[in-house]
């Protein structure tokens, strides 16, 4: 996981005020509870991501903000206004759809002008605004093309321009990059981030791609089964997962069952560990610990560090820039990523299959993610 990238957004100054407030939102489709009680505050000018696997309710939530679906319970406030009963065409939000939903019978220019035309803006003004929007997304010269003559990336830009030209309070993006290939996706990420910073519009970004969310967002809400599992800045969500789901969904994670012996001391199948938890545990409490693969350190000789134990190298997976070791210890399999260790421990890559190694788990990287079930 490229941590450097998402650190860059940590200290962005945001304006005060709430752009979108969700209060106790619930939505049911037939027998399934798509959204099961969500409370969220999304700040003005924030790049906010709804992250989760498919079917977690993130798109439903977005559709309710857009007005395509009405919540069964709860309230949606946009810029302080209750949106109950307000149709999509009267809401101060615009959407970038997953497959762009560009009008195939209209040109690029006509697509972008659509929203302004609906507002009955004078013709001269419309063409000025459309020109501005085309420039914003670098699509000058393609005004008269039709959607089927555009590449995926170009469609994406038109979809963005079509939404942004209306100057919405909030821009809703429903997996806008998922249909593009990797390289284009990475380019457009940067463009989207720059655009958002430049315009200062609140973005609500739905994605199932954790890397995308981590790289781009000011804050992330991780959703699972219609509920928000954790909300916070990208780094917090990644480094300090609060639930096993978050730990597993955002990158790889090793989950270790543990029983508290003392407020900061636990027994695990791998041995007794000390923790750096702020919330002390009650002795006897059964919990789950999480540690990221790249936070596990390996040594040939016993290091003088806390939380060390021995393990056997069960498998080695080469993934280009990284080596993954699968370790067996205490009846468990642990995954490690050796990217960071390259720098710290030269010569570690000599570990071979079936070798016995020393493993160290730094207390501050060992996070309690929930009660063991």
């Amino acid at each position, binding site marked *: 996981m490229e941590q450097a990238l998402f650190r860059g957004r940590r200290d962005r100054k945001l304006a005060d005020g709430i752009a979108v407030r969700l209060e106790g939102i619930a939505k049911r489709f037939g027998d399934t509870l798509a959204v099961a009680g969500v409370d969220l505050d999304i700040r003005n000018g924030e790049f906010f991501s709804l992250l989760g696997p498919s079917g977690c309710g993130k798109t439903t939530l977005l559709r309710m903000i*857009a*007005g*395509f679906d009405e919540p069964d319970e709860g309230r949606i406030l946009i810029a302080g206004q209750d949106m109950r009963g307000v*149709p*999509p*065409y*009267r809401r101060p*939000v*615009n*959407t970038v*759809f*997953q*497959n762009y*939903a*560009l*009008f*195939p*019978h209209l040109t690029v220019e006509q697509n972008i002008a*659509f*929203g302004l035309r*609906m*507002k009955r803006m004078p013709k001269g003004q419309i063409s000025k605004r459309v020109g501005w929007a085309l420039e914003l997304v670098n699509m000058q010269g393609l005004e008269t093309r039709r959607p*089927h003559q555009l590449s995926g990336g170009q469609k994406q830009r038109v979809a963005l321009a*079509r*939404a942004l030209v*209306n100057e919405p309070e909030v821009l809703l993006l429903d997996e806008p990059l998922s249909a593009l290939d990797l390289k284009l996706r990475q380019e457009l990420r940067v463009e989207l981030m720059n655009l958002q910073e430049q315009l200062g519009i609140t973005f609500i970004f739905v994605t199932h791609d954790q890397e995308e969310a981590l790289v781009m967002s000011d804050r992330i809400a991780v959703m699972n089964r219609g509920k928000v599992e954790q909300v916070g800045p990208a780094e917090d969500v990644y480094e300090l997962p609060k639930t096993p789901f978050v730990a597993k969904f955002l990158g790889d994670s090793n989950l270790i069952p543990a029983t508290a012996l003392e407020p900061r001391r636990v027994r695990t199948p791998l041995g007794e560990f000390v923790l750096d938890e702020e919330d002390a545990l009650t002795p006897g409490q059964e919990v789950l610990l999480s540690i990221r693969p790249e936070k596990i350190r390996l040594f040939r000789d016993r290091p003088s560090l806390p939380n060390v134990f021995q393990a056997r190298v069960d498998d080695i997976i080469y993934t280009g820039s990284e080596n993954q070791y699968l370790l067996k210890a205490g009846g468990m399999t642990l995954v490690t990523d050796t990217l960071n260790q390259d720098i710290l421990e030269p010569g570690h890559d000599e570990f071979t299959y079936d070798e016995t190694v020393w493993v160290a788990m730094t207390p501050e990287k060992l996070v309690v993610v929930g009660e063991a079930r």
Partner: protein
Amino acid sequence: MKRLLAVYSWAILAFLYLPILVIVVLSFNKSRFGVSWTGFTLDWYARLFANERVLEYLANTLIVAVVSTAVSTVIGTLLAIGLVRYGFRLKRFLRYLLYVPVVVPDVVMGISLLLLFDTVRDTIGWPRLSLFTIILAHISFQVAYVTLVVRARLMLLDPALEEAARDLGATDWRTFLEVTLPLISPGVVSGALLAFSLSLDDFVVTFFTSGSGSTTLPLYIYGKVKTGITPDIHALSTLMVGATILILLLGLLFWRKGGTK
């Protein structure tokens, strides 16, 4: 094997066209009786156009086709939209009802409408069998076809397009006018063309729902076949086949232009 298939298939296509071709050729044949070629003539066409009754029947046929197509296209398109866009009670029932005119033999369709018109007339003294009843009857089966054709097109339509329009500030009505209708127009046009040719083609339902003074061309041809064919019927048939091909090509052109799919 491939060759055999080709020969077989072209033979079948020849079988499909042979009878029509014979009629076309005979319409230009001088001979009044029999099928031997005695020279080229346009007499039969001239005679056809001089026949005021035929012109009246042609007018009847066209009035029925145009009016019934117009009404059924509007009703059918709206119904298709309703069926695809909204859930409601009785929807399933309505969908089954839609298939009835498609699958019921046209004799049954004809006599059922005859019964309806007869029952209503017995009760309120109106309507007598006329062009009006033929139009009502034609609409009844046309609606089903138009709805099914337009519905097929609508189901290809990404619902996100309509949502996008609403998201961009279009009211329901403007969404329909600016997005839905242009995008389903190939379906609407081909539905209309289908309805039009079904109306032109129909003999059986018309047979049961027409009255005196409401003879259409198919009824006229039927009567002539029963009493004795004359070459001017060949000429009439040739013209009708020509018109059919023209309508079809027009429809094809529009479909190509309107839809890329």
